[in-house]
């Protein structure tokens, strides 16, 4: 259990709803759900979720902290915004899903082999390094995400597409060394670091005083 997790468990004891309200982006909307199920019915990935949004909200109210935070459900969200558009109570459901995912990851409770999470991390690392997405490196790192031999296989399978993209000047092989950057990559990293500090400070000071 991460330190932050222990601290949160202590702070909120039985009320996971309060914890979510204080720490999850748009989390104070969870209580407004009226369990109509329109979000679950509208989700294009609905049948593939372990817990559709409506159920996640009910689990939060029922205090099922462990089950919610370790669930892969919110990671399945594709941000199509169908649920937001249709929710009769106007809950920002997509944002809450991302908020829950972020919070679970921050606590170290997100499922370890979650591909969406892995991809998101790789994307972020790739981007934040130079301020520009290095598509070649990102692509290759994705091929090798699940081991070396699978990486080789995928690379060979995608070879023709890669070559055609190069011909069409959509992919630059020189990106493999260094790659392009934004003007002030150092400055960008400083900004991100500061933002991180502010965020952590906010988390540490948030929540209901008990």
């Amino acid at each position, binding site marked *: 259990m991460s330190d932050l997790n222990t601290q949160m468990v202590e702070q909120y004891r039985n*009320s996971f*709803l309060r914890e979510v309200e204080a720490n999850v982006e748009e989390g104070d909307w969870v*209580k*407004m759900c*009226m*369990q109509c199920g329109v979000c679950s019915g509208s989700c294009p990935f609905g049948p593939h979720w372990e817990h559709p949004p*409506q*159920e996640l909200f*009910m*689990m939060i*109210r*029922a205090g*099922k902290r462990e089950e919610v935070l370790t669930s892969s459900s919110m990671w399945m969200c594709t941000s199509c915004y169908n649920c937001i558009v249709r929710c009769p*109570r106007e809950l920002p459901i997509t944002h809450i899903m991302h908020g829950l995912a972020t919070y679970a990851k921050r606590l170290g409770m997100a499922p370890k082999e979650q591909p969406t999470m892995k991809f998101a991390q790789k994307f972020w690392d790739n981007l934040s390094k130079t301020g520009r997405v290095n598509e070649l490196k990102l692509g290759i790192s994705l091929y090798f995400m699940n081991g070396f031999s699978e990486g080789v296989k995928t690379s060979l399978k995608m070879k023709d597409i890669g070559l055609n993209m190069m011909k069409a000047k959509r992919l630059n092989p020189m990106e493999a060394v260094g790659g392009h950057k934004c003007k002030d990559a150092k400055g960008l990293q400083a900004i991100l670091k500061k933002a991180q500090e502010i965020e952590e400070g906010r988390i540490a000071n948030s929540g*209901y005083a*008990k």
Partner: protein
Amino acid sequence: MADVKIGAYICKGCGLGDRLDTAQLAKIATSEGKAAVAREHEFLCNAEGVAMIQNDIDNEGVNRVVIGACSRRAKTDAFNFEGVAIGRANLREGVIWIRPDTDEARETTQEMADDYMRMGCMEVRHMTPPAANEEASRNPNILIAGGGISGMTAALEAAAAGYPVTIVEKSGQLGGAAAGFHRRVPDRAPYADPMETGIDEMARSIEENPNITVHLNSRIAKTSGAPGRFSADIATESGSTRTENFGAIIMATGFTPYDASQLPEFAYGKSPDVVDQMGLEKLVKEADGGAIKRPSDGKPVERVVFVQCAGQRSDKKGHLPYCSGHCCVTSIKQAMYFKDQNPQIDTNVIYTDLRTPGAPGEDFYRSGQRKGVTFTKGKVSEVVPGGSALQVKFKDLILDDDVSEEADLVVLATGLVPNSGVDIDPQVAAKAEEGEEGESAQEAKVEIPVESILNLDYRQGPDLPHLKYGFNDSHFICFPYETRRTGIYTAGPVRRPMDIAQAREDATGAALKAIQALENASLGRAAHPRSGDLSFPSFRKEGCTQCKRCTVECPFGAIDEDEQRYPQFNEARCRRCGTCMGACPVRVISFENYSVDTVGQQIKNIDIPDEFSEKPRILVLACENDAYPALDMASMKHIEYSAFARVIPVRCLGSVNTIWVTDALNSGYDGVILMGCQKGDNYQCHFVKGSEMAHYRMSKIDDTLTQLNLETERVKTYEVAITDIQRAPQLINEMAETIEKIGMSPFKF
């Protein structure tokens, strides 16, 4: 009948002149209809046409008017003449609009019109212009049983309209159930917070109002009379009784909270920390603004669970089968008591279906959520008292999980039981003892000791009839305040489950209806639905066999028995439906303008072609409230039906005397159709029981048919709604097809 002088007027407008031989109709009116005057007119409903009729009434001594034009439902303002009996031969909607305009159809169409003309003349010949009830008297006083929200609202509204009101309240104070509330559910925007009940204010304005008299600790020991002349004995607890007279009565006796001790599974009675909603209101009142404490040890409540539908909406024995309508919003309100005091208190409302009637209800629900009240969709199976806390065991219906939650206090939403007096309907009781359906109804019935509220001295029983689940019968669809006792109106939860806002609205409506009833009674006119009708039933005493069927079958308990055991018609109680007339086996009951003869003579005077003419005759007796308008509307859409049908409107199918059907069959009709309204619990019958009675009586007609050696298919009884525009003509056509199949009646002479 020496002074009967019939004037027949035939309109040639609306295409009648083109389609029909109106001169022939006029001839029929004079020769067969014995009309003294018969005139045709190009446009009868215009000022000139109406003036022509009025002139004949004034100068020619015409006292019976037959108008051969449109349906009796059209142009009622134009064809409204004082002091004469009016009959309408329906030539437009009844004839030309439902028949094709072809040469082949011309003959049968004309025959149809001829018959309607004969029928019109025969009807008015046997009618007398109705005179007002001699019994009429005006008494502006209104008696209100019950001094709760509904009763007080009705009193204030009636008093504000200038009518003296007397409230009889059983308990020692005004306010009823709501007096026990800490706050009430809000009735105005933004519907966010509980608000003051306003009971004290209402009670004060009642005390200050010179038009309102209040009798506390009192009950009504006896009620007799009729609208405009009710007499009530008001008995106080101390034993004194005073008799007062009233014009109308409002029964606003409200409800009793369901007895939660019938719910052992929820530990009510076993643990003091399980309370019902009224119990929580009491706790909150006791806390007087401080922390709400649990009864067992006085510890401030930190976790409270609300159990919705406790012993309600359930078919288990001893439970209420219905939804009490207010408990969901009440629980939200009560959860707010806690949240408004301390947002840290956990409040969980466990519901299966959250019902918050009306838009304000939804706003209030949302406000509850915003305040942090948790709503869990689940079904509570058990509440287990433990050492320091109660365990609420429930099934989470969203997560499909069996859960146990700890609580300091459990509030049961147990619902309401109407204080509707004694269930007087012996038929219902008898049915409940018989069939399967009856058994479940009996199980669902809640046993509470009942004492009569109104103590009516009516022959049919001391209280207002119930419909279902012990709520007083009131006409749900058309006339919600009207009970089955004219001049006595119900308001509030005694009529159906409702909350304060609805009860206030209800009471206002009932007050207005009470005023209307007493004013109508003072003019000797009927109350709804034949509002303004001056006719009333009378009977030929020499012919009466004292069989009591009229007194038993009157849906409104209007008929008592006098000392000699003859029926005593209390005109002001009568709704003029004629169910008594249909019931009478010796046919001695009649109205001035509606009797066994007015319809019977129409039936007998239709021209019946012989057996070999291939022109059958179908008699249609249609309820004038639903089936007849449905046929009219069908004709407006030019939906065709058989030219062999002759439609006679009846006040209510309940007024159909079986003699009409037997006479029709004996005189050679090939088929008879009866069209009444929907019956049963969801009745649409304006007279509540009329259609049901007719169906019951007609279920016996098969014997008569068999005796006459006729096929049973020749008589059909249907429930027809006003919306059955396609179906009503279809039913007539089906009968025509049936007759084609089984052949003509052998009784044509």
